């Protein structure tokens, strides 16, 4: 459903993606792990056109991703994004955040969008926070609203860019719980994360990225339990046993 082939991307003179080739099948949960600055987030941002890429090819459901083409709108309504810093609209309530896309981008009738919006907030456990503005919510609650906002677009896949990195440790569980439920429901997900336990439990496949290339990839348990590559082994040792 999402295909990347030989994708290159530079910021100025720094090449951050050096030929990424990968694919994500429908219903699959793929976790991307790797050190900071390895290009993980850039991959996600290229998939939904928040960044352009210099060469290679990215396609979603067969349609090429080109951030400057009008077709990018259709890509973005099919592939939602959840950000590290939530990026909720602070001037709108939780519910208004959720229905913004359906009403103003997909032109759905307001009543219908409202009904689904409330159902989605209930699904992420925040039914009673519908009329609250984001600054009054905890980080974990904000991120769950952001997930509801992503779901409201009825996407075929959701990209998560370090969704729990900005959260207090005790709030991480709520967000991961919602994500696990989504995975169980068959949502296609690409998750950039440092949560190795989540990756091990929920992901079908793990990609380990370092220096802009995919160093190792395979079934989650294989990569995380028996990494083949020395760089992967080193990374996992540092993450799992930091002391």
């Amino acid at each position: 459903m999402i295909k990347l082939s030989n994708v290159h991307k530079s910021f100025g003179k720094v090449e951050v993606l050096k030929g990424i080739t990968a694919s994500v099948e429908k219903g699959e949960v793929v976790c991307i792990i790797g050190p900071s600055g390895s290009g993980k987030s850039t991959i996600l941002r290229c998939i939904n056109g928040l960044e352009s890429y210099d060469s290679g090819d990215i396609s979603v459901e067969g349609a090429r991703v080109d951030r400057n083409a009008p077709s990018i709108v259709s890509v973005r309504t099919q592939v939602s994004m959840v950000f590290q810093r939530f990026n909720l609209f602070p001037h709108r309530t939780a519910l208004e955040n959720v229905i913004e896309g359906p009403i103003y981008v997909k032109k759905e009738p307001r009543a219908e969008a409202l009904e689904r919006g409330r159902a989605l907030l209930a699904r992420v456990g925040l039914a009673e926070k519908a009329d609250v503005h984001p600054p009054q919510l905890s980080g974990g609650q904000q991120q769950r609203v952001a997930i509801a906002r992503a779901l409201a677009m009825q996407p075929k896949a959701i990209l998560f860019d370090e969704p729990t990195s900005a959260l207090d440790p005790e709030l991480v569980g709520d967000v991961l719980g919602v994500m696990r439920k989504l995975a169980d429901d068959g949502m296609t997900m690409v998750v950039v994360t440092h949560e190795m336990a989540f990756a091990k439990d929920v992901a079908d496949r793990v990609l380990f990225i370092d220096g802009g290339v995919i160093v190792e990839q395979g079934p989650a348990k294989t990569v995380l339990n028996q990494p083949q590559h020395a760089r992967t082994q080193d990374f996992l040792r540092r993450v799992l046993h930091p002391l």
Partner: protein
Amino acid sequence: MQAFWRDTVEFLPILMSGVALTVIVTIGSLLLSTALGLIWALMRVSGIGVLTGFSAGLINVIRGIPIIVLLFYLYFVMPEFGLTLSALQAAILGLGIAYSAYQAENFRAGIEAIDKGQIEAAQAIGMGWWQTMRRVVLPQAVKIVLPPYGNIMIMMLKDSSQASTITVAELALQGKLIASSTFKNTSVFTLVALMYLTMSIPLILLVRHFEKRAGQK
């Protein structure tokens, strides 16, 4: 003091007709400068080279010309090119254009203060540039922009007196006319100053209200 009160009773009606024109010039040029300023600011942040360059150049040209020269140009020079404006029209147009540069810089600062993540979130749900501006950026920028906007309003109220130089009989010109025919300079100009101050005070309070509200967020 008694003489002052007597003069006040005598001159106030004439000065009030000046106040009416001052208000018209101020509101007219405020609306025009707001609309133009918003257009220049949106062009400036559009990311389209030609528009950005045009807007930046235009703002510099406008900022570099004194208001009084702009007014003379509109009122005395434009008729030579076939565009004859009434004094009031020229005053509103001139002040509106002159202040559009400051409005534009204020709006641009407000727009650029919005977190880039907000724009990305809007794009990620499929919004285009204009929709992102209208639904996400501008509503948040308003809070940032309002306190300086209030200050611009006060400056415009006072600068509307420059319209007197092209014969608009607003408060300052009415005062000057009375003073030069009665020689009661002290009474007249004290009155004129008090009347400008009276009109400014509500605006000053408004700015304070805006600042308080912006500080809360």
